[in-house]
């Protein structure tokens, strides 16, 4: 059987300033639920109202994932596909200001958010939705 060619998407497919989707907004909200329970020194430097594009979401998600996994931001290895070579303008993400070692989360974090907290999360989500393109 002859090899089947799998073309890469064109450069125009990459659109890091695309507004976050409902899916990403939910993922962010879940991270924010966890972040709200952290001591202030562990919280991310990203303001919720600034996380409106996919790239901004990725920076925040990097910070939170590394925090939860106890890893340094710089530890992530290169990923094979599908990736394009770095452009001159492409810079590494800033190191999070909080600690990067593993942290113990409050036992309360296992519980579903209290009503008051859920309401605050909804306000955040509504604010995000106002900012991004309607879907």
């Amino acid at each position: 059987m002859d090899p089947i060619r799998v073309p890469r998407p064109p450069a125009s497919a990459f659109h890091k300033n695309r507004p976050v989707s409902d899916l990403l907004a939910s993922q962010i909200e879940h991270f924010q639920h966890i972040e709200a329970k952290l001591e202030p020194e562990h919280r991310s430097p990203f303001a919720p109202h600034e996380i409106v594009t996919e790239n901004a979401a990725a920076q925040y998600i990097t910070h939170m994932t590394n925090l939860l996994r106890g890893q340094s931001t710089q530890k992530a290895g290169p990923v094979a596909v599908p990736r394009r070579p770095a452009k001159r303008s492409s810079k590494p993400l800033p190191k999070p200001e909080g600690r990067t070692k593993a942290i113990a989360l409050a036992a309360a974090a296992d519980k579903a958010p209290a009503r008051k907290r859920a309401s605050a999360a909804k306000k955040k989500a509504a604010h995000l939705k106002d900012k991004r393109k309607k879907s």
Partner: protein
Amino acid sequence: MPPDKSKPGIKALKHVVVLMMENRSFDHMLGGLKATNPAIDGLTGRETNPDTTGVQASVQPLAEYQSQLDPDPNHHFAAVNLQIFGDPAKGPPALQPTMQGFVKSYFNQQRNVKHSRDILYYFAPDKLPVLTTLATEFAVFNRWFSSIPGPTICNRAFAHYGTSFGQVSMNLFYQGKQYKSIYERMLAAGHTVKLFYYDEASSTMEVVNLLQNQPSLFGTFQDFLSACDKDLLPEYSFIEPNYTDHDAPDGSGEAVACDQHPDHDVRAGEQFIATVYNKIRENPKLWASTALLVVYDEHGGIYDHVPPPACTPDGFVAQPSDTGTLDAFHFDRLGVRVPAILVSPWVPKGTVINDVFEHACIPATITDFFLGAYPQRSPREIAANTFLNQLSLPAMRAESDCPDFTVE
């Protein structure tokens, strides 16, 4: 049904890999295959949906890789109700599933009649060389449905837990519930498991439950590739694609979203699927001992012509305030059909599977194969079909009989 361990393919099996993509329906991705293989329950080309002017719009092989399904089609519970039953507020028993509300549902987002018809478009098979080749060269499921007629996260929960614990939305807080995830079950029995997300910038959709409480379960896609090279692949692996276009955290370049979620470019997902397949296939030991399932979490609001069937009730109830409809939901019917393909050199070429599957079949299959009897599972998972018996050949297929992909 537990796998028949007398079959050579089952005897050889040591690893199962599940790759779950995002938000595309069966007909949208694979419906065009019916023209060349009538056994595949795709499209005849005569399927229609009424638009809001009463005109019958037809399915057409005009799906584009990107920019066509923007805005993202609504796939929350009430919108899916409209797509399936023609009414956002009511369902069975008052209404039967007709699959006639997709165009009307998409119209609600932009009030653009012409654009609303795009929801019926499907890919010509040659536009998706990876997915359609795997579907025709290995086993394609004619009846794999999403677990819930709703969005991503509650559907993905069925792949991890065999239930969504009564949730029909994106907000999920499972910890401490009565059913353990497939990963906890496997680890408790001394087996190896890993969830591989793409990179830290994309991460996982299992944030509040698994990532928060069991971060050691996770690895990156690079870790998956490395594990395949070093013969260190876990017995069970679950792969999540890249959910965002972003600058790579290590500064190595642009990471293109490869989840195929609208409006991400579908070609990036094709490359991603091919990379997973190639990596397993490159290692002869792994190729002989691994089953790869490629499946989509839900239909993403995109048209499919097969009405979802009833299923074993889950024991949970979602109230009307959660579903956004007039009725409570008893988890007693499935969501819209999605693409699902089983890949292994022990699967007969051109297999078409007609039994009903859904995402609870994933933990059901892994549990049956690796753990055996395990009663503490959801009713849905206990009733679910398993898929490893498809590895039924008496001998492995020859290298030359299996496709090769050249990822550019």
